[in-house]
């Protein structure tokens, strides 16, 4: 980890920790004041000049604390607008990668689907067919939806809303998948930490749960899965930074999101199993992590989506080609 990244993580930790009980608006102000929104915008343009490894590290910190803000979406939206040469979205912003409708004669009519925190943000950066545009949300009809963790995933309906699209060469879906891997990795590590702490304090049959081999073995499996998610995520972020194949690290991000998705069942069920009934209550904070993990598993590509996309790509490489491709990419990175 670079010194800059260590400082960034430290600052993310303290700010995310401090906003735990704050309202959405207060929390947002604290995060915005810290300048996270411009994380990926280059320094020459007045941004922070962070790379994808920095972004991944911040997303992990957000995931660890189940941060109830669309922070990653804000970072990606701001970066994407900047890349397209558009004005930065004013205030809180989210992203839309599932667009049903089109921009014609400077106006967008249609639906931005499953916009994270759509009802709370001021603007949305939408990307479709190689074009990006920014839409203020005040003109939208909002169809409120949520993911299993209760996080807003709203459909925003627009009728002839003024929009100025600009060409952009980013695969926002892929970047958003990497964002979720970071959050999933953080949440999995936190679920592990909570489970270990619980096993070290809760007594049954006259000893703490941690002393039972069955519990130790289950926690070891949980730890190994959490380690796999973070190893995959960090490697994918690094690959995105170096982009040895010039495709935005599509293969690496696909593999990382899929591997993270594959870990969710074991991570959530084991954390709850170790906690027993107490972990199943509304009051106990474990569900803030586990329910998000379940929701994030589906977002920006579920298992089937990435398995087929990656599988089709690998099949074209051929049996020997798979090995040659993954080694070539990591050697060049």
């Amino acid at each position, binding site marked *: 980890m670079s010194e800059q990244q260590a400082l960034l993580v430290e600052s993310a930790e303290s700010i995310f920790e401090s906003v735990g009980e704050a309202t959405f608006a207060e929390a947002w102000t604290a995060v915005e004041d810290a300048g996270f929104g411009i994380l990926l915008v280059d320094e020459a343009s007045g941004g922070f000049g962070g790379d994808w490894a920095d972004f991944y590290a911040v997303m992990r910190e957000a995931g660890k604390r189940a941060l109830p803000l669309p922070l990653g979406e804000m970072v990606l939206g701001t970066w994407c607008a900047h890349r397209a040469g558009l004005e930065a979205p004013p205030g809180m912003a989210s992203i839309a990668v599932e667009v049903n409708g089109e921009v014609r004669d400077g106006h967008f009519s249609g639906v931005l689907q499953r916009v994270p925190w759509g009802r709370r943000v001021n603007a949305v950066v939408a990307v479709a067919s190689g074009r990006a545009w920014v839409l203020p949300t005040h003109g939208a009809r909002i169809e409120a939806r949520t993911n299993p963790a209760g996080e807003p995933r709203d459909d925003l309906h627009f009728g002839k809303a003024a929009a100025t699209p600009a060409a952009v060469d980013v695969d926002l879906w892929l970047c958003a998948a990497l964002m979720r891997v970071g959050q999933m990795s953080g949440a999995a590590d936190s679920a*592990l930490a909570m489970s270990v702490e619980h096993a070290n304090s809760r007594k049954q049959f006259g000893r703490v749960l941690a002393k039972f081999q069955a519990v*130790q073995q289950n926690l070891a499996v949980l730890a190994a899965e959490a380690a796999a998610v973070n190893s995959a995520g960090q490697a994918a972020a690094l690959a995105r930074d170096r982009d040895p194949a010039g495709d935005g690290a599509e293969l690496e991000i696909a593999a990382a999101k899929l591997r993270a998705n594959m870990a969710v069942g074991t991570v959530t069920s084991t954390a709850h199993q170790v906690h027993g009934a107490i972990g199943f209550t509304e009051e106990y904070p474990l569900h803030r992590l586990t329910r998000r993990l379940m929701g994030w598993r589906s977002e920006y590509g579920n298992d089937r989506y990435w398995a087929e996309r990656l599988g089709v790509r690998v099949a074209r490489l051929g049996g020997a080609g798979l090995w040659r491709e993954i080694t070539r990419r990591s050697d*060049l990175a």
Partner: protein
Amino acid sequence: MSVFAIHRFATSTDAQALRAEVRAFLDENLPEANPARRTNCWAVLDPDFSRRLGEAGFIGMLWPKRYGGHERDPLERYVVLEELLAAGAPVGSHWIADRQTGPVLLRYGTEAQRRKYLPGMARGELYACIGLSEPGAGSDLANIRSTATRVEGGWRLKGQKVWTTNAHDAAVMLTLLRTEHGSERRHGLSQFLVDLDLPGVEVRPIVDLVGHHEFNEVFIDDAEIPEGALVGVEGEGWTQATAELALERSGPERYLSSHVLLASLIDAAGPEPDAVLAGVIGRLAAELWTLRQMSMSVAAKLASGEDPMVEAAVVKDLGNSYEQALPIAIQAALGSEAQLADGSALAGMLAMLLQSSPSFSLRGGTREIMRGIIARGLRLR
């Protein structure tokens, strides 16, 4: 909370050029083999292949040149191992000498021991085996009962080792014996080099459930070995032998030893597989890629001189699970090849791995032992 510190893998030289060198060697030297014998390939013995590999400079890569080594970088060696395993090369004869016995001799051995064994090992001609398990000491390794007793000019050995992989092919066994009579558990153990052609040493085969002879029993009945056969410090055998285990558990053989099966599936599926098969290939590729990142991270940590005991256990546990799930997932997804009797390369490899893969989480430390090590890393024990 995390038990897995991530280390950056970067070779000092051009890894692509090194891979090209190994691939060219394999194009020339990889023997035509029954496809089933290309799975679990680090257990497949082929002295002729090992000799050629040694001649090409791919054994003992890290060792000093004065012992026949090549003084290369540890991560260069890692690249070479990856290439050999991914191709299903029969590396079993020399594997243990190159991975474990040689490094132990460089760390703890005497000058005479190094001169006696290392050059032959680096040539791919002198093979080694590891005598740890006994009938009463498997996962509970500290229960070792075989003894070495000081006699005039050396030691007299008595006891029995079991599950000794490749003892029938090896010239020497690095073994752990009790040297302090009446000692218990981890105390009073010492490491020795035992030449397997000594009088009083008998190697008997144990044939496994697929009909292969990899394991052996080694009976030692009053065999006498010279003073110079002690490795390292008398009574420090436990520490020395367990340090060696981190080398044993962290390598790419823990997830890559049967890669040829996945490659064969991809070839059989063709460039446009149906959605079900594409999904299976995608999932396996994601696991393979992730395990590779983890294994490289452990290799980088080892190369920097740190001890990745817990990380190595994570890689071994996940790698074993992946290699066991691999044939199961492929069998479930195939069409007619799943009959396992059509004579195809894919069916042959699949049938072999379905049978042999349960052993992966037994050897080199069982799954339960690995998870116990991870639990210790979590401070649960």
